[in-house]
């Protein structure tokens, strides 16, 4: 927790309203995100109980599992969900664009847009991940055949859950996290996991403070939990009798339909408030303009969507239960790089995020007082353009001489610290030598060198290219990491034989 964000929380407590901690939106928001609000049966291993799904506020579809312990009904639910999710994914598979690769010598194609899933909270992501795990290995033949869409749904849900692990991805978002990335509430991170409470702070009903609205949202009798866990009191008093009534109805069609309606009505009442909150939250996020680097990260999500669609089309297998050594190392590196880039890009896009880094001594803002844009360094073999500028700042400058700094205004340019001279009046003079981002000649194009009087931000955070690590091919996994995985001919990971209760 940075001091700046902590201060925003303190201000939220004092003012009774959530406070902004971002000035732009750092996440991509689809025009038609697929909102999924799942409910699970208590005590079971991720057994779906119900879900409300749809890509627009008036397109809510309610799915219900009348007997959640029944294996066939579980997979019937999966097939129903697949009948919504898979056509939704296909909506994005019409248009592609060409992307140059290999320095323009070749092109590849990617979809111009990609699907986006929204769930209420991180537990919702876990639910989808586990539901994907429980369905992607199911077989459409054999002893317990499932509908052919079920394993496909499982593979896509797994894809989304894996994207959700990657910092900066917007393919699958938990709304509580998306909201608290942009606003600080006056409660703790534990309480921020509760979507109704977060929205209580952000947008309290008339006449209530955020704290009052959040407290009211905690009472399950007043505001049902946002899932996947249900309120135990609801389970015991309402849900259990309704499930029993459905079971008792047996094969009598009329009684069964009546019991089903009763059950569906109960579950709708539990889900509908969260459904409303989801779209209200989406609306709040839409009020923020997107950050400059959001589109670039979304392109990464589109790349991943394209690649997975091609993998599925080409008959590729489901994601393994566990990564091998090489795949795990690759994944870890990819996530680390994404995490670094995510932190840097948010700071570049958003002065309020950069302020957190200014406070921690990773950046400072100052005014350019001297500039020599024509300075040429001819001490080497060839003369090179190396303008110098002097920046005066009132902020601390802990960077040592020789440090490389960058400016969000000119991300392609490097500024090397030459002198740091603390003044008597609390100001610091910093002399920097610039390279890059000024063309190839010995004269800097106008605007490429900061001018006297300009206020610029300089930071040690770099949004530059991070070279990838070199990893061996899977068949060359060293013995220290378990050696090559079995014979290459062996099936990747046989569907684990599981019987269902």
């Amino acid at each position, binding site marked *: 927790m940075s001091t700046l964000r902590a*201060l925003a929380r303190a201000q939220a407590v004092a003012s009774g309203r959530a406070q902004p901690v971002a000035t732009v939106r750092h996440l991509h928001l689809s025009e038609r995100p697929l909102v999924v609000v799942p409910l699970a049966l208590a005590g079971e291993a991720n057994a779906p109980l119900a879900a409300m799904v749809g890509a627009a506020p008036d397109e809510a579809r309610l799915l219900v599992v009348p007997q959640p312990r029944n294996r066939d009904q579980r997979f019937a639910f999966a097939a129903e969900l697949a009948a919504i999710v898979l056509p939704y994914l296909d909506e994005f598979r019409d248009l592609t664009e060409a992307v140059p690769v290999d320095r323009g010598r070749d092109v590849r194609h990617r979809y111009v847009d990609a699907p986006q899933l929204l769930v209420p909270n991180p537990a919702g992501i876990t639910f989808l991940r586990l539901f994907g*795990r429980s369905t992607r290995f199911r077989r459409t033949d054999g002893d317990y055949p499932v509908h052919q869409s079920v394993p496909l749904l499982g593979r896509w849900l797994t894809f989304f859950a894996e994207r959700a692990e990657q910092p900066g991805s917007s393919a699958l978002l938990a709304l509580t996290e998306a909201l608290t990335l942009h606003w600080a509430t006056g409660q703790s991170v534990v309480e921020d996991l509760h979507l109704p409470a977060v929205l209580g702070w952000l947008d309290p009903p008339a006449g209530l403070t955020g704290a009052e609205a959040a407290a009211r949202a905690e009472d*399950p009798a007043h505001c049902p939990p946002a899932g996947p866990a*249900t309120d*135990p009191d609801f389970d015991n008093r309402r849900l259990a009798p309704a499930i029993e009534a459905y079971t008792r109805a047996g094969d009598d069609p009329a009684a069964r339909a009546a019991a089903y309606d009763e059950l569906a009505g109960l579950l709708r009442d539990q889900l509908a408030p969260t459904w409303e909150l989801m779209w209200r939250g989406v609306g709040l996020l839409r009020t923020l303009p997107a950050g400059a680097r959001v589109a670039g990260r979304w392109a990464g999500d589109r790349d991943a969507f394209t690649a997975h669609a091609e993998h599925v089309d080409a008959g590729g297998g489901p994601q393994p239960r566990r990564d091998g050594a090489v795949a795990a190392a690759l994944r870890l590196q990819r996530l680390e790089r994404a995490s670094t880039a995510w932190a840097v890009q948010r700071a570049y896009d958003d002065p309020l995020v950069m302020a957190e880094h200014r406070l921690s001594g990773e950046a400072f803002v100052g005014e350019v007082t001297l500039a020599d844009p024509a300075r040429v360094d001819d001490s080497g073999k060839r003369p090179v353009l190396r303008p110098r500028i002097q920046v005066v700042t009132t902020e601390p400058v802990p960077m040592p001489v020789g440090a490389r700094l960058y400016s969000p205004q000119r991300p392609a340019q490097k500024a090397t610290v030459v002198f740091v001279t603390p003044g008597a009046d609390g100001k610091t003079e910093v002399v920097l030598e610039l390279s890059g981002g000024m063309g190839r000649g010995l004269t800097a194009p106008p605007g490429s060198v900061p001018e006297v009087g300009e206020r610029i931000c300089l930071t040690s955070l770099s949004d530059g290219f991070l070279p990838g690590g070199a990893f061996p091919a899977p068949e060359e996994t060293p013995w220290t990491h378990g050696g090559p995985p079995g014979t290459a001919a062996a099936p990747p990971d046989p569907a684990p034989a*599981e019987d269902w209760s």
Partner: protein
Amino acid sequence: MEDRLARIRGGGPPRRHNARTIAALTGNPGCTRRAVLDSAGADKPALAERLGFPARFGQSRFAITRGNAFEAQVKADGGKELLRLVAERLGVPVPEGATWTDLGADDDRPERSRAALTASGNGPALFDHPLLGLDVAGTRVHLEPDLVAARLAGRFHVVEIKSFPVIDGQADPGKVAAAAIQSAVYVLALRELLAAEGHDPELVSHEVVLVCPRDFANQPVASLLDVRRQLLVLRRQLARMARVEDLLAAVPAGFTVDPAADPATLAAALHEVPARYAPDCLAACELAYFCRHEARGQTGALGRPVREALGGVEEVADVLALAEGSAAPEPGQAEAAALLRAAARLRADALAGQTA
């Protein structure tokens, strides 16, 4: 001392502890209010209800049914399957058979449990529902765990059967942590029982066997949990509660939380005994909602990381005053005040649209 504790809880019988409540004691060891109330055996759920901040620790009957069904399944057939699972997990040869002693059925349980568990003999044996005891704040607490103590290769292992799933070798970390601390309570109690009879307490392993359903089916799978760290924490908190005199020294002489009293009186009485509310309390202590209400306006109520990021200043109002520069920092707050002022200035600049 007993009288004083009885007066605190309002004269009724002390509320009985179980492994769950003892485990919860380790959650926030710095909280005096909780240590005093738990030492006295006060009825915290009733108290919270009376204060208008009822605890929310309901359990769904679906979860209870599923837990019982899984436990019955694992223990079925004289524990044959359980024995195989435990032995294989411990890496010892699966014995031909083991004696199965259910200590849960009769009247004279403490004595019978003691006798059975400390009887000589080294053969493989499973003891179901052993009754164990532990001293908590000077009173003997009886624990009636649903667990099995397994004696294999001459050592005892606590076997805990839980119904949360282990999927691809991973389980919910929160649930595993809760199971670990509860199991540690049983390990401690079992060790004390053996030690009291002159046996080596180390005969009880610090590794407990957790039996859970595997993946999405009902097949049980056994895992080992090392509870040494939990044992340390538990011992420390129990030792602290054993010195209940020290705890009570900080408590006003007439302090009582008789649930029959008027809510305003109760609240006033509780304010006299300092709590140390943290957001984690919400998941562990019945009184948490009351304490949270009381801690409104304190930085600690936002979580310890927030409080630390704010330089350790306790009151939100003080934080904002220091940040605005409208209050002079107290001695020792100079650094925090400078940080807060810088943060407030940067925040205001960025929000006012000063990009750089």
